[in-house]
C-alpha cells in the first residue's frame, strides 16, 4: 500500500516535466490502486478471525523510538472508509481537473497529483499507526498535503486566506495533541501504543480527564465541531471537488478515529465506566454542532459551503453516538449491548456520511466544472441538461436527510434507539437531557431535509437563471462513474445494512470488550435490525429495511400503473401558471426566499443583519431603486474569534512598540531568554 501511494507521488513529480495530463492520470491511477489495496487489507482484518491484529514494524528511523503499524479492528474499519471514498475520488479526479481548469500550469498539476497521493497515504497510515510518532508524522503530513490541495486552485486570494486559516487552526489542534501524547510518552518512556496504554492505567482521574480534554480539543479542531469549525466552511469549498469530498468524507472521520482511540483504548481505566464528564461533554458538543451546523447550512447559497456546514452537522451526529457510548459503557444496570448499539450507530454513520457526502461533493463538482458557477442562485434547470448528475445528487440528498430507505436513515434509527435506551436507563434530569438530545436530533433531520429540498430544487429544477446554466452539458463518464460507485454504496447500505454490521463486529468488539455489532443488532436474522434488551427487560424493537424497501418497490409499481390513468390521454405541455404573465426566471423562488421563514423562526440564533436602502427620484414617493442586503454571520466567529483576534492584535501592537530595531537589543533579549531557561532547568532538576 505504501508502495502504491509512494509511487504515485513520485511518478507524478517526474512525469510532470513532460505532460500534465499524463502526470494527473498516473497519479490518480496510483491513488486508485492504493485505495483498492487498502480495501483489501481492511476487509481482510475485519472479516478475518476476531481479535486478529496485523502488526508491522517499520524501518528504524530514530534511535529513541520504534515505529510500527498495527491494524486492529478500529484501524481497519477507518481504513475501509478511507479507501471507499478514495476509490471514487481517484476515478473522478482526472476528468474533473481537466474540465475545471484546463489551462493549469504543469507545476500545479504535478503538485496536485503529489499532494493527493501524500494525503491519501498519510491518512491511511494514520489509521494504521501503532505508535505515537507515526501517528503524529502522518497527522502533519495529512495537514500539509491538504493545505497544498486547498490553495492549489487560487483563482482569487480567497483560497489563500482559507488555506492560512486552516493551517493556523490545524496546527493549534496539533499542538494540543502533542501535549497529550508527549505527557503520556514521558510517563511511559516509550512511544508505542501498548506502552502508552500501560502508562495510562496508573494515572489519577484528574490527569486522565485533562489529557482526554486536550486530545478531544485537538481532534475537535480537525473534526470541525462548533465552535472550532470556522475553518471548515472556508477550506472545504476552496479545494477541488474530489479533494473536498475526501476532506469532508474522510479527513473529519480520522479525527473521530483519534477520539475513539483515546477514549476507549489509550486512556480508558482498567475496569469500571469512563469518567462522568467525558461522555456528557461529547454528547453536548455533538448536539450543539448538529443543530448549529444545519442552521448555518440552511442559509448558504454556495453549494460547496452548504455541504461543508452539513459536514459539521453530521460530525455532531456521530459525536452524539460516541458520547452515548461513552456514557453507557460499563455502567451498572446496563448491559454491554447498549453501548455497542450506540457505538455501532456512530461508526455506521461514519461510513454513511463518507458515502453520501462524497457523492454530494462530487455532484457539486460536476455542476461546478460544467457551469463554473458555485452560487445556486445563478443556476437552475440543470435537471434537464445534466440528468445523471441530478439523479445522483437527489439520491445523496435523500440519504443525507435521513429518509428511508437509504443509509442515512439506518444510522439515525440506531442513534435514536440508543438514545431511547439511555433515556430509560437514567432516571432523573440526565435521562431528560438525553431525550432532549433526541428531540434536537429529530430537529436536525427535519432541517437537513428542508435544506436539501432548497439546494436540489434551486440548483437543478426550475428555469436556468444564467447563460452558464442554460448551456450546461452532462459531466464526463468517469465522473459519473465515481458518483455511481458512491450512490450504489448508499443504496446498498440502506437496503441491506447487515453487510455493514458484519464489518462493524471487529471494531465494536475490540473497543468495548463486549459482544460485536452483528451479535447485538442483527440478533434476529440477517435482514432485520433489532436493538438489544432494554433496561425495562422487554425486547427491543425490530425493523427490516429490506422488507420495507421491497414493499416500497411493489407499491411504486402499483402507483405507476395508477399514474398512467384509466385513459390513454396524451400529455399536454403548457407553460407554468404565473397569473397570466409570461413566465421568466424572475418568477422562480430563490434560495434566499426559500430559507427566509426559517431565518425568521430562528432569528435568535442567527442575528441576521439586514439593510434596505431606497433611492428616490424627486419626491420621496417615487422609488427608483431598492437595494437589499442581508447577511448571516457565524455567531462563533463574531463572539469568539473576532474578540480573540482583537486581543491578539492589540497585544501584538503593544509588543511591536518595544522592538527597537537595533541589533544589540535583540542579542540582549536572546541572552535574557537563555538565562531564564537555564534557571528553570536548574529549578526542575534541583
Amino acid at each position, binding site marked *: 500500500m505504501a508502495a502504491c501511494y509512494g509511487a504515485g507521488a513520485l511518478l507524478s513529480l517526474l512525469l510532470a516535466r513532460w505532460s500534465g495530463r499524463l502526470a494527473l492520470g498516473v497519479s490518480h491511477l496510483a491513488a486508485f490502486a492504493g485505495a483498492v489495496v487498502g480495501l483489501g487489507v481492511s476487509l481482510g482484518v475485519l472479516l478475518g478471525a476476531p481479535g486478529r491484529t496485523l502488526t508491522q514494524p517499520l524501518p528504524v528511523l530514530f534511535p529513541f523510538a520504534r515505529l510500527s503499524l498495527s491494524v486492529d479492528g478500529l484501524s481497519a474499519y477507518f481504513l475501509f472508509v478511507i479507501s471507499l471514498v478514495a476509490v471514487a475520488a481517484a476515478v473522478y479526479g482526472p476528468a474533473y481537473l481537466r474540465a475545471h481548469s484546463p489551462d493549469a500550469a504543469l507545476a500545479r498539476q504535478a503538485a496536485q497529483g503529489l499532494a493527493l497521493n501524500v494525503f491519501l497515504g498519510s491518512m491511511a497510515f494514520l489509521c494504521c499507526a501503532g505508535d505515537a510518532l507515526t501517528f503524529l508524522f502522518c497527522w502533519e503530513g495529512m495537514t500539509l498535503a491538504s493545505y497544498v490541495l486547498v490553495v492549489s486552485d487560487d483563482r482569487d486570494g480567497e483560497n489563500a486566506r482559507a488555506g492560512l486559516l486552516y493551517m493556523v487552526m490545524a496546527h493549534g489542534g496539533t499542538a494540543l495533541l502533542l501535549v497529550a501524547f508527549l505527557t503520556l510518552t514521558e510517563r511511559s518512556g516509550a512511544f508505542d501504543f501498548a506502552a502508552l496504554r500501560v502508562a495510562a492505567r496508573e494515572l489519577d482521574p484528574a490527569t486522565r480527564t485533562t489529557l482526554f480534554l486536550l486530545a478531544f480539543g485537538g481532534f475537535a479542531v480537525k473534526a470541525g465541531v462548533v465552535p472550532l469549525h470556522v475553518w471548515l466552511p472556508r477550506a472545504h469549498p476552496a479545494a477541488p471537488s474530489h479533494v473536498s469530498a475526501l476532506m469532508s468524507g474522510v479527513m473529519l472521520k480520522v479525527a473521530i478515529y483519534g477520539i475513539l482511540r483515546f477514549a476507549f483504548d489509550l486512556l480508558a481505566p482498567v475496569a469500571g465506566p469512563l469518567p462522568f464528564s467525558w461522555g456528557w461533554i461529547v454528547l453536548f458538543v455533538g448536539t450543539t454542532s448538529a443543530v448549529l451546523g444545519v442552521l448555518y447550512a440552511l442559509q448558504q447559497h454556495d453549494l460547496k459551503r452548504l455541504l461543508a456546514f452539513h459536514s459539521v452537522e453530521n460530525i455532531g451526529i456521530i459525536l452524539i453516538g460516541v458520547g452515548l457510548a461513552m456514557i453507557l459503557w460499563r455502567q451498572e444496570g446496563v448491559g454491554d449491548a447498549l453501548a455497542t448499539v450506540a457505538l455501532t450507530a456512530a461508526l455506521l454513520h461514519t461510513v454513511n456520511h463518507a458515502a453520501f457526502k462524497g457523492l454530494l461533493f462530487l455532484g457539486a463538482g460536476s455542476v461546478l466544472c460544467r457551469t463554473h458557477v458555485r452560487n445556486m442562485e445563478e443556476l437552475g434547470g440543470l435537471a434537464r441538461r445534466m440528468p445523471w448528475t441530478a439523479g445522483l445528487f437527489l439520491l445523496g440528498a435523500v440519504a443525507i436527510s435521513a429518509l*428511508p430507505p437509504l443509509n442515512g436513515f439506518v444510522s439515525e434509527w440506531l442513534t435514536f434507539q440508543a438514545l431511547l435506551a439511555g433515556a430509560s436507563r437514567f432516571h432523573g434530569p440526565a435521562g431528560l437531557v438525553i431525550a432532549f438530545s433526541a428531540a434536537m436530533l429529530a430537529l436536525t433531520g427535519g432541517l437537513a431535509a428542508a435544506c436539501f429540498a432548497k439546494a436540489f430544487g434551486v440548483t437543478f429544477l426550475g428555469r436556468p437563471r444564467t447563460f452558464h446554466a442554460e448551456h450546461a452539458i452532462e459531466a464526463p463518464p468517469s465522473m459519473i462513474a465515481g458518483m455511481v460507485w458512491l450512490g450504489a454504496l448508499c443504496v446498498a447500505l440502506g437496503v441491506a445494512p447487515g453487510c455493514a454490521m458484519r464489518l462493524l463486529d471487529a471494531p465494536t468488539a475490540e473497543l468495548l470488550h463486549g459482544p460485536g455489532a452483528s451479535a447485538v443488532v442483527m440478533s434476529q436474522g440477517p435482514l432485520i435490525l433489532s436493538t438489544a434488551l432494554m433496561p425495562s427487560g422487554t425486547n427491543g424493537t425490530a425493523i427490516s429495511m429490506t422488507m420495507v424497501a421491497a414493499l416500497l418497490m411493489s407499491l411504486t409499481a402499483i402507483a405507476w400503473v395508477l399514474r398512467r390513468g384509466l385513459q390513454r390521454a396524451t400529455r399536454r405541455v403548457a407553460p407554468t401558471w404565473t397569473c397570466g404573465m409570461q413566465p421568466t426566471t424572475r418568477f422562480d423562488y430563490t434560495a434566499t426566499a426559500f430559507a427566509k421563514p426559517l431565518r425568521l423562526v430562528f432569528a435568535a440564533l442567527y442575528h441576521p443583519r439586514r439593510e434596505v436602502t431606497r433611492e428616490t427620484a424627486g419626491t420621496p414617493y417615487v422609488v427608483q431603486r431598492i437595494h437589499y442586503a442581508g447577511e448571516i454571520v457565524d455567531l462563533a466567529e463574531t463572539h469568539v474569534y473576532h474578540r480573540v483576534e482583537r486581543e491578539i492584535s492589540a497585544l501584538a501592537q503593544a509588543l511591536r512598540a518595544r522592538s527597537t530595531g537595533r541589533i544589540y537589543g535583540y542579542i540582549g533579549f536572546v541572552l535574557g531568554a537563555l538565562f531564564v531557561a537555564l534557571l528553570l532547568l536548574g529549578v526542575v532538576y534541583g
Partner: protein
Amino acid sequence: MTGDRPLGLVLLEMTLLVVLGPLVTGTIQKIKARLQCRQGAGVLQPYRDLTKLLRKGTVQADTASDFFWLIPVLVLAATVAAGALVPVVRAGPPAVPLGDALLLLGLLALARFLTAVGALDAGGAFGGMGASREMTIAPLVEPVLMMVVFSTAVAAGTTELGALAAQRGTSWLLAWHAADFLGFAAMLVLLPAETGRIPVDNPDTHLELTMLHEGMLLEHSGPGLGCMMLASHTRQIVTLGLVAALFFPVGPADRAGATGLLLGTGAFAAKILVLATFLALVESSYAKLRLFRVPQYLGVGFVCALIALALRIL
C-alpha cells in the same frame, strides 16, 4: 420478536387504510358543512373526485424535468408503505418485522420531501412558496413527535407500534398513566400540523397566500393529482391511526377469527371517527394562524410532550 400478525393481515390492514382514507376526509368535510349550517357534499365525494381525476389527461409545465412525472408515484408509495406500519384491527407485532414508529415518521418525511421537490420543479412562485412554508413547519413538528413517541416508548421499551399497543394493554378500559394526558394533549396540538388542517394550514382554499400543502399540488393534474390527493388522504388516516395506536390501544388482541377481526375493525373505526370529529370541530372553531405564530403553537405541544416525558422518567 415475531408476533401474531401474519404478513397477509398487515397488507390487508394497509389496503383498508388506503380505502378508508377518503371516507375520513369526506366525513370531516360533512361535519364542517353541517356546523356551517349547510348540507355539504356527500361523505363519498372524495371517491368521486379521485375517479374523475384518474380519467383526465395531464398538463405538465414546460420547465418540469423527468422527475415530475415520478413524484406522485413515489409520494403515494411512501405514504401507503407508512400505512403498513400501523396496527389497525389487532395489536401485536407483525410476524415478519417491518418497521416501527420512527420508520413511519421517516416515510412520511420522505413523502413530504418529494412533494416539496416536485413543487419546485415546475418553477414559478406558488410551488416555491408552498414548499418553503411546508419545509419550515416540518422540522418544527418532528421534535415534538419524537418526544411523544419517546414518552410512550420509554415505558414499553419498544418503538414498534404493534408491540407498543400490545404492551399498553388492549382491554376495553383505558389504562393511562398521568404522563399520557400530556402526551395526548401534545398529539392533539400536532394533529392539525401533520394533517394540514386549520389552525396550521387551510385545506379548502386555493389562494396561494393561505396554503402550505395545497400550494405544492398546484402544478399536478389528472392522474398525478389523483395520486397526490390519495396520498394526502392516506397520510391523514395514518396519522390518526398513529394516535390511536399510541394512546387508545383498545380492542381485541388475541381473539382470532372473524369476530375478532370485525370487532377490531369496529373499534378502529370508532376511534378514527372520534378523532375526525375533533379535527372538524377544531377547524370550525378557530382561524388559521399566521405562519410565524405556528412555531409558538407547536411550542406548546413541545412543552407538553417534554413534561410528559419528565413525568415518565422522573
